[in-house]
């Protein structure tokens, strides 16, 4: 059983539907007991960092997430969840969870992609450059594209970077260490390669 953290920030049901299509049992929950009893935790999110941090702290789920990590329970942050695992975000100048070192910065409109100024948000399908291997990407064609939608990007400490993506700048698309991963793109909306990532995460959770 996987727990999908419910903190009123967006796309929890998309993640649940994707897991169900794979035959993976999961529930959307804000109950600390259920979260800490799950085989693994998914921390999704869409929206603004300030508002999301407010929801997490007022519900006490920020502490639950820290306990998940200190108990070495597998955790997967997605999109906004990926961003607020770091220490700080330029979005609303927000201090975030600080579970891993790094910060989150804003795309600059004067940067270019394909010789033209970038449009913000970075919305659509982009490729990854793999910096180090991760079991999360096992069995996935390295040329696969993944679906992104975000206006801020993460800069974690370099030793955690798994894959980068280029749009105006080269930024981190996936980072973490075994058992604690964060993805800027949406695996639940990235077709087959994205679903494979969710399967790989679930397999890791079952073996952990």
């Amino acid at each position, binding site marked *: 059983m996987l727990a999908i953290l419910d903190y009123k920030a967006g796309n929890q049901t998309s993640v649940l539907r994707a897991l169900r299509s794979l035959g993976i049992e999961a529930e959307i929950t804000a109950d600390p007991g259920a979260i800490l009893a799950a085989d693994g935790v998914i921390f999704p999110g869409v929206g603004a960092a300030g508002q999301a941090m407010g929801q997490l702290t007022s519900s006490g789920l920020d502490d639950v997430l820290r306990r998940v990590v200190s108990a070495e329970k597998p955790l997967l942050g997605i999109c906004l969840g990926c961003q607020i695992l770091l220490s700080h975000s330029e979005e609303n100048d927000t201090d975030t969870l600080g579970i891993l070192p790094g910060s989150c910065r804003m795309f600059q409109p004067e940067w270019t992609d394909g010789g033209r100024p970038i449009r913000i948000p970075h919305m659509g399908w982009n490729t990854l450059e793999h910096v180090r291997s991760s079991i999360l990407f096992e069995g996935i064609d390295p040329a696969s594209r993944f679906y992104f939608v975000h206006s801020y990007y993460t800069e974690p400490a370099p030793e955690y970077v798994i894959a980068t993506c280029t*749009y105006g700048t080269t930024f981190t698309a996936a980072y973490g260490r075994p058992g604690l991963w964060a993805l800027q793109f949406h695996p639940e909306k990235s077709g087959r390669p994205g679903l494979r990532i969710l399967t790989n995460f679930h397999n890791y959770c079952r073996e952990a």
Partner: protein
Amino acid sequence: MTEPCHLAKRLIPCLDVRNGILTKGVRFEGNIDIGDPVETARRYYEEGADEIVFYDITASHEARGIFIDVVERVASNIFIPFSVGGGISSVEDMRAVLLAGAEKISINSAAVKDPLLISRGADAFGSQAVVVGMDVKQVPASDACPSGYEVVIHGGRRPMGIDAVAWAVRCQELGAGELCINSIDADGTCDGYELTLTRKICDAVNIPVIASGGAGKPQHLVDAVTDGGASAALVASIVHYGQYSIADLKAYMAGAGVAVRTI
């Protein structure tokens, strides 16, 4: 050497749904039913569509529930983003389709009548969830419409006296995350997208722009995302009748040097 384009240009099939059935407008004949929207969406997903748009053209209030059910079934069967338009005129309408599993909502006439609906949607769900669709018609340039393109509503029957480029900029300021520009003049002609209009709007905003209306052959898609500057191209007839598959169109675009996602 020019810098390569990393972000892929998107190809987005648009499905019109009436009373829960996929339908297609045929000139002078009204709408004909052409299939099951969930099966069709699933097929386009398997063929490599980057996103799917559903448009509810149901007239009656009662059929709205059927449409929401379609959205839920689609969300359990395709794992790419999809957006939903038609019949959305309040934050509550938006919430209903987003909860049913759509990533984005698309508003058109309702935004023209009540521009702050864009801001209310963006505040509630984030800009990335709010697409503003615009129906646009070419007119002689005037003080009211200096660009020579005017916003129309009700399928083009009602001119609004609003300049299309100025409206696009306003939509961005109000919090739209993306624009879908539909040329009433090009729609249904199969002669290609309205590239001048698309380019004017792409140059005026820095959010993604989807070109809509007029696709009849693969080169038209290439033109929309190169000369037109669009981030994505919407397609309907060109794929609905089996003339081209999504994969055919993607292969053509890739061959023309456009960055596309292939599966």
